[in-house]
């Protein structure tokens, strides 16, 4: 295969594949811009991707039907806290496991790995009883605190730190710096990629959380975005245009976060994922 013929062919096949891949997203985007009644009627041919009668009515509808800004801010705050505090807490633990010698380290690390397997749904009910007894229902706290410590994040930090060259830390140590100071002055500045990866992964998994907030909150003041979609997705006839518009607006912030951190994310994955 000659190179001159190969490149356009390569692009063409990639483009076709890519279009196929994002066609569901195109369907959603186009649907969010056209009247509800046409969303499904036009699903059987090319018009599915064509925002006929281009209008922002569905978006305005979303704002009219729920306090979107309130939900969005709640979601941003909850996820911001989980990601922010989580980065600190889990990276410290990851460092302690990767670099420091202490009694019980091996055993505890094994337990952390085992805990990684437990899905939230498996512990939702007992956890729910616990936070209810503590009187934490219907707060931000109850949506944040249980998700800060994260076994998977600790594991990712651990693998990254293990792979870092020791020389820098040795130098700091000779200068008399303790582990905490070494961590904040030497490790953190040199480990931005893994922080970006963990931030994005945590954000992605928490952004769509539905079951837990549903169980532990009841007032709009603290409820996150995924619960707002229940308002659109429960009473038939369903207004697909509104649902799609809501979806687009809900995904947009994540896309922005991803694009912002993409470069670091890929680099972070290089150094964590491959250690297996």
């Amino acid at each position, binding site marked *: 295969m000659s190179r001159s013929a190969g490149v356009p062919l390569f692009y063409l096949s990639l483009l076709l594949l890519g279009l196929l891949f994002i066609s569901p997203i195109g369907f959603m985007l186009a649907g969010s811009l056209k009247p509800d009644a046409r969303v499904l009627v036009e699903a059987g041919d090319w018009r599915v991707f064509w925002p006929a009668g281009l209008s922002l009515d569905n978006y305005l509808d979303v704002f009219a039907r729920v306090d979107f800004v309130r939900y969005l801010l709640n979601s941003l705050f909850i996820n911001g806290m989980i990601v922010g505090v989580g980065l600190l807490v889990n990276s410290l*633990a990851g460092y302690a496991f990767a670099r420091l010698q202490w009694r019980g380290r091996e055993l505890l690390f094994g337990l952390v790995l085992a805990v990684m397997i437990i899905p939230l749904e*498996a512990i939702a009910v007992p956890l729910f009883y616990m936070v209810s007894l503590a009187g934490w229902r219907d707060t931000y706290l109850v949506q944040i605190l249980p998700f800060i410590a994260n076994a998977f994040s600790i594991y990712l930090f651990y693998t990254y730190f293990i792979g870092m060259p020791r020389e820098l830390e040795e130098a700091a140590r000779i200068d008399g710096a303790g582990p905490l100071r070494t961590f904040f002055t030497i490790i953190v500045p040199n480990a931005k990629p893994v922080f970006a990866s963990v931030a994005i992964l945590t954000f992605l998994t928490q952004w*769509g959380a539905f079951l837990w907030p549903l169980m532990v909150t009841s007032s709009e003041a603290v409820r996150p975005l995924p619960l707002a979609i229940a308002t659109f997705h429960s009473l038939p006839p369903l207004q697909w245009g509104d649902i799609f518009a809501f979806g687009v607006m809900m995904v947009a912030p994540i896309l922005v976060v991803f694009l912002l951190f993409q470069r670091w994310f890929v680099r972070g*994955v*290089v150094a964590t994922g491959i250690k297996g």
Partner: protein
Amino acid sequence: MTMLTKSTPNQKRRGLTAVFMSAPALLGLLLFVAVPFLLAVALGFTNLRLGSPLPLEWLGFEQYRRIFADPSFSRALLNNLLFAFTVVPLQTVLALLLALLLNRSLGGIAFFRTLFFMPVVFPLSLVAVVWVLIFAPGPNGMMNSFLELVSFGAWTPRDFLHDPQLALPAIMLTSIWQGTGFQMVIILAGLQAIPAELYEAAAIDGARRWRQFWHVTLPQLRNTLIFVVLVTTILAFRLFDQVQIMTQGGPHDATTTVMFEAVQAAFARQQVARGAAMTVVLFLVVLLISWLQRRVARQEREVL
């Protein structure tokens, strides 16, 4: 660890610092994961029904006996296995192919990477809702009309989500669509970490492209792939959102999963104890599988 021989006051202090550093995370995991899980294990031996005024009773293994006698639960386990053994390899191969395609420095390649990653940023609950519409029955459904187009009219419209043969594959397709981009990014990162010298050496040896792939790329990607497979397998056993929204476990349990059965028991029927017992079984199964995978991976390492 080479520098350690015996404990000095300095090292003791460092040990204390280590405990201090890991304490917040460990405390969090203990309180919010380990304790509730142990509670779930305990609840699985009782008759607890959400909000019931009846006294709590110790039932021993009764809940376990019942769920294993329940054909829906066996079907759920089987579906989870089917799902894992289909989706994990397919998705990994697809992600690997995409990563290989996109691992070049051509103009606009970043655009394509973002394109294939896009589905990952969509929450599963939203993805499932969109795919329900895509799988709409009748000639007006998007998937039906697409298949009709590519088969030049030979395809007769099917009701995917209510067809015992097609419902689980439909959910698999949805999951693969959503998950491939994530794997792709990780594999892409793995590819970029492979030292260029290895390829150069192989090129000097006159190795052809697919031999290069076989002898350089794949061995170098080994750890990445193990990681990806492990994570995807764990996720496959947690399968829930898509089932809940797209098929409710039907038709005839063709798409039910352990997590779906557990949530159905604990929430729709308020039988918390039964749900807890199911999740304990799930935990043991996933533990077993991760252990097997780690063993297999370790053995391979020894052989290589």
